[in-house]
């Protein structure tokens, strides 16, 4: 409760500063609108079906990307985590691809795939893969040898140990990876939309209103929506993690 109060104070302070800066006359209000103006616009926008459709388009692409990234990264992580030989063989390739900033691939993807939803989804999947992949591998590396020994002593084979010991043990780690990837993929979906790699979505909408007569109040309203989606998803996933994997935190402390 206290941390929630502190969080609220922080947010209120930021909004107040923003409001004051907006009125201070550093820049014309159409270029740097105060927060009250942005929220007023946002209120109007949320009442329009068109804007809600853009939000849904972004959220949908983001959720699909996150699901795909998880579906690819977890099995891949289990494979690389259980066969060190495979990991060594792919290490150089992985370390070569991983540092590539996904945003740098936007022009290439637009040329290759076009500007449909699959473009932003592909890029978001690419960016979201790594945290989930590396957390899965890490979880297998960190698997308590006694768990394996115990399972073996009860006659479990390699596959059964993977399914009934290694995977349940890795789930909290994997979930943390998903949480990190959730914000990465949201950023990437909106980035692609903003760079013209889409025909719908908040980013695409923001691109539209930022051209011509610069309606920064509208652009910022879009930004606030993106921020709120990110915030809600993180809180939601945190809550889910506590509910599902409470055993992990407490069990770790009890050690």
């Amino acid at each position: 409760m206290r941390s929630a109060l502190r969080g609220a104070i922080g947010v209120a302070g930021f909004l107040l500063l923003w409001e004051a800066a907006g009125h201070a006359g550093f820049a014309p209000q159409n270029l740097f609108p105060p927060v009250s103006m942005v929220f007023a616009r946002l209120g109007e926008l949320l009442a329009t079906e068109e804007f809600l459709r853009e939000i849904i388009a972004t959220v949908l692409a983001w959720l699909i990307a996150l699901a795909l990234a998880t579906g690819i990264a977890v099995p891949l992580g289990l494979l690389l985590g259980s066969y060190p030989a495979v990991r060594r063989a792919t290490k150089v390739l992985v370390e070569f691809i991983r540092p590539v900033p996904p945003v740098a691939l936007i022009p290439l993807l637009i040329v290759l795939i076009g500007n449909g939803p699959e473009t932003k989804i592909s890029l978001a999947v690419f960016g979201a893969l790594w945290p989930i992949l590396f957390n899965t591998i890490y979880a297998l590396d960190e698997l308590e040898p006694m768990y394996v020994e115990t399972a073996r002593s009860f006659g479990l084979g390699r596959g059964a140990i993977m399914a009934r010991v290694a995977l349940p043990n890795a789930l909290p780690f994997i979930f943390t990876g998903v949480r990190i990837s959730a914000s990465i993929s949201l950023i990437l979906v909106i980035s692609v939309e903003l760079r013209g790699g889409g025909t719908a979505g908040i980013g695409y909408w923001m691109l539209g209103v930022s051209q011509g007569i610069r309606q920064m109040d509208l652009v910022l309203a879009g930004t606030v929506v993106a921020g709120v989606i990110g915030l809600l998803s993180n809180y939601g996933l945190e809550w889910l993690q506590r509910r599902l994997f409470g055993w992990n935190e407490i069990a770790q402390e009890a050690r």
Partner: protein
Amino acid sequence: MTTMLEVSDLGHTYGSGDTAYTAISGLSFTVDTGELTCIVGPSGCGKSTLLRAIAGLHTPTSGTVRLKGETVAGVPEDLAVVFQDYSRSLFPWLTVRDNVEFPLRSRGVPAEDRARRAAEALEWVGLGKAGKKYPWQLSGGMQQRVSIARALACRPSLLLMDEPFASVDAQTRFELEDLLLRVRRELNATVLLVTHDIDESVYLGDRVLVLSKPPATVVAELPVDLPPVRDQITTRESDAFVSLRSEVARLLHGKEPAATPARGAAARAAGAVDQGGHVAESSTPKGQRTVTAPKNRRNGAGGKGRKKHMKTKKKRGVTVQRPR
């Protein structure tokens, strides 16, 4: 009595060449059905290597292990292990009941039977009501009882215990020792328990096997001539207990044994009395010496002193305990 376990000429060497380390060598003994045999040896003597070989967790470099007459290759289904480190051998993501059901699930026991057997096993160890809790909500002693219940739920022909009470406080250890004695009596279980605690080996065992320093061999085999129902206070102060524990201590820490048995015919035939002259030995057909502790000999050294240092802190309920 039928033979449950037969270990013959077991040896295990780790590595090869200059860095090779022989943990056990020429180790032979048997365990009869319904018997509780304790193996006691100096720390780092290869007890775990021996136990892992019996459990089929690794293949020994020489010799064989037979369980009910069949050579062990791979993990035998008819065997269950209780490890020392309960906190790392119970799965934190499973409830107590699911932990107990864990081995049954992979053996294809139907859900109904699993639930019944798990409840029954938890009842045996006095945790009938803890099924829905998680292991980390229990004290160390209770966690180890869950491990014991999990092993018993498998209804193993042989229960292997690897220093099962070494990580709990002294008070809990006594409780668990008595629990083990009660349960094995009720179930007529065959138990092979490895420990480094001399008192424990004598208190629990029908028979104590003493191992040497590595490469470990069986130095002596001592039948424990104590009444089947034992008591933490009266048994431990009885003359028979005190003299037996002294014999074990002498064999373990005292002088080197007169000869290393089971190494060759010459060694087998040699030496009936160790250097201290306290132990009467006789050669058995298997090449091990059966040591009979002389009775009526009082030797209290160490036997009672230990009790003074016991912690009597009792942990109950949802305290979480860290293993030593």
